[in-house]
């Protein structure tokens, strides 16, 4: 594999026999593409990118308001745009993209057709209608309740109805995915076990069902209350069930993101899992142990006891964290083994240095892996420690954490995937490829800067979701340390960078999808051509991965230091029980 012009997929897939009717054969990969699935992948992906742009513009306005030197928006619009940002980024962009991923992996990778066109229409139209309703109530000031809409804050009934429609629409799309898995197995379109990526996507879909059911349980009574048909849902009950939706949906994102890591690892470097049983086992751990995570948001709540909090936040001995630590090893290990087999054997990290860093599909995915692991993962587990949460709850440390997981992690991985989705499924080539090669770095640098700014500002006690930390007009005006203001400035600079990266992504994608050179009938132009490497000096060893071992060693060391530093910080505050 010294040099090639196609995606390094290796030997023709085992078990793929012939193409299904209503499908085309991909000119690049030779994989079958169901045309109905392709259409809905396109619809969902385009909707996702539109929501990303809306949420991104909102993000810029918010950052320029939280940056004290700028303080752009008036208070009312700050909270309104914050509501808009949360829904577009965390819900609409992600869910539309995930439905697209589910349709893709269940058809193309299983050589199957999409189970139902009508169901796909129903799902898509419900999601679009629901999203439109939420956008409308939010922009017209009828739902200034933020993403969480904690009772007894109340919004317009159309707002709750919109959320219900999005949740049920997504659930129907997930149902279509399961139906496709079923017909693929029934019609024997493949033999043996499903590919790892399909397995991971299935884990995401299973968690999504549990998550979306929580959404229905909490939103239906809240909707009825907004219509005056019943009393207000109890605020503690609402928080418990809402976070069954709010936090678990992030676990859906983790599963989808890890699946995309495996997918892009294979597409960009030809990597294959070192041990499939380990990778699949880790996905099973997610399914079994992730669904208690709503406790993360209730660690300093009244009415939940110590043992309840400890048990639920550690997901039963942190077995879901173990799952992420396993993927954090297996993903780079598969890249290292693949690269070493090509002859990139120099030193500990020669394989990594020789990786295709100019290919945005690779750089985006690997940066996503690093940001998720080193920043998002470590902070998340630490802040979700029962007692440590006392010095973190509702401060900017929390968004500092999750912008490193869901933005630096999931969103960046989805962006990286787009650099293959457009040529392979829209059959259009990108313009301005040099800019595309820079885009993941720009976005990653912005998100990392912003996330660190938020985290450190939060360590000074700066609250999240707060219009003015100078408390202008309050009867009594506390002040924050100058360091906190500096950190908010760093957050602002990072946000501007990240927004530039986001805008570049949207412009490149839209330009390619609508105006890109058509590439029907020929293979996509590869993002990189493998350099000729020295031939392997010794037989490739599938278990030789010293670079990965050092990388995860550094990760664990950073984790341990950050974790115990936080216990130390906690020990310095007042006694409380």
């Amino acid at each position, binding site marked *: 594999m010294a040099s090639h012009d196609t995606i390094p997929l290796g030997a023709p*897939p*085992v*078990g793929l026999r012939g193409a299904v009717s209503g499908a085309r054969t991909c000119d690049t990969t030779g994989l079958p593409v169901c045309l109905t699935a392709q259409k809905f992948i396109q619809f969902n992906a385009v909707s996702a990118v539109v929501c990303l742009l809306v949420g991104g513009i909102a993000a810029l306005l918010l950052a320029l308001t939280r940056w004290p030197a700028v303080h752009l928006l008036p*208070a*009312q619009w700050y*909270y309104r745009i914050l509501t808009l940002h949360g829904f577009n980024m965390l819900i609409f962009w992600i869910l539309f993209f995930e439905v697209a991923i589910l349709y893709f992996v269940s058809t193309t*990778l299983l050589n199957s057709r999409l189970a139902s066109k009508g169901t796909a229409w129903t799902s898509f139209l419900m999601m679009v209608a629901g999203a439109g309703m939420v956008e409308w109530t939010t922009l017209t000031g009828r739902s*200034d309740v933020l993403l969480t809409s*904690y009772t*007894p*804050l109340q919004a317009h009934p159309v707002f709750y109805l919109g959320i219900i429609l999005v949740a049920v629409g997504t659930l129907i799309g997930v149902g279509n995915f399961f139906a496709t898995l079923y017909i693929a197995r029934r019609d024997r379109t493949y033999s043996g076990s499903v*590919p790892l*990526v399909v397995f991971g996507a299935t884990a995401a879909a299973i968690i999504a069902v549990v998550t979306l059911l929580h959404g229905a349980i909490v939103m239906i009574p809240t909707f009825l209350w907004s219509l005056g048909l019943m009393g207000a849902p109890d*605020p503690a009950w609402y928080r418990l069930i809402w976070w069954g939706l709010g936090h678990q949906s992030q676990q859906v994102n983790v599963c989808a993101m890890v699946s995309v890591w495996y*997918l892009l690892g*294979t597409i960009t470097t030809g990597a294959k899992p070192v*041990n*499939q*049983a380990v990778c699949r086992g880790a996905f099973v751990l997610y399914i079994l142990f992730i669904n208690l995570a709503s406790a993360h948001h*209730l660690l*300093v*709540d*009244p009415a939940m006891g*110590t043992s309840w*909090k400890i048990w639920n*936040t550690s997901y039963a001995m*942190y077995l879901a964290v*173990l799952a992420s*630590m396993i993927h954090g*090893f297996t993903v780079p290990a*598969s890249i290292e083994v693949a690269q070493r087999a090509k002859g990139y054997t120099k030193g500990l990290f020669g394989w990594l240095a020789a990786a295709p860093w100019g290919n945005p599909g690779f750089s985006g995915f690997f940066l996503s892996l690093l940001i998720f692991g080193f920043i998002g993962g470590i902070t998340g*587990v630490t802040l979700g420690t029962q*007692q440590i*949460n*006392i*010095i973190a*709850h*509702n401060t900017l440390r929390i968004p500092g954490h999750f912008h490193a997981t869901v933005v630096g992690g999931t969103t960046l991985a989805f962006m990286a995937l787009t650099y293959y989705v457009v040529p392979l499924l829209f059959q259009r080539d990108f313009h301005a490829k040099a800019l595309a090669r820079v885009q993941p770095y720009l976005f990653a640098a912005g998100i990392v800067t912003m996330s660190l700014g938020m985290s450190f500002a939060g360590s000074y006690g700066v*609250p999240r979701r*707060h*219009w003015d*930390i100078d*408390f202008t*007009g*309050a*009867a*009594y005006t*506390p002040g924050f*340390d100058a360091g906190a203001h500096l950190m908010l400035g760093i957050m602002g600079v990072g946000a501007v960078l990240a927004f530039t990266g986001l805008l570049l992504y949207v412009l490149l994608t839209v330009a390619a999808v609508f105006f890109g050179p058509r590439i029907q009938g020929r293979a996509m132009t590869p993002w990189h051509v493998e350099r000729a490497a020295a031939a392997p000096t010794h037989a490739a060893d599938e278990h030789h*991965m010293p670079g*990965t071992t050092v990388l995860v060693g550094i990760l*664990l060391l950073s*984790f341990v230091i950050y974790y115990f530093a936080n216990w130390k910080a*906690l*020990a310095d*505050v*007042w*006694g*409380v*029980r």
Partner: protein
Amino acid sequence: MSIHTPPADWFKPPTGAERAWIGLALVWCLIMSMAMPYWAVKGKQNSSGEAYRVEPADFSARVDRFVAAHKVGELDGQPVVEPTPGGDAYLLGRMWAWYPILKLRQGQTYRVHLSALDLQHGFSLQPMNMNFQVLPGYDHVLTLTPTSTGEFSIICNEFCGIGHHLMTGRIIVE
């Protein structure tokens, strides 16, 4: 290949570095699991979630009785209230203020009752950076022992409407 069906014999136990990492990660997960129960017993900072149902109007009446019984002065028009060491103190969150100003003694322990009159609020003590959730209908009891002296501010860190940023309060420790 992650995107192709795996060979039939894919189910294998992990070996080598991968196996060692899984073991090491599991040990770390167990250490983290043990840290929380350990701190719940030995540590001085815990969130036990002690709480009682209370009607907002009843809680408000209890706050008023507490202020009347223990008021020791006024600051910027707000009552300053000094509870008995070892006894109960009350703090009400409402749109948009924390009421009243509490005066505590260093090293003494108080049962501070937190509740909200209207919406959810976030008790955030600065610059200590200690944070607790405050819900209407729940009397959230913090058994609090101030270990440093000075004037501390309370801000709200749960969104409670357009005047959220105006919601401040104070605890004075001597």
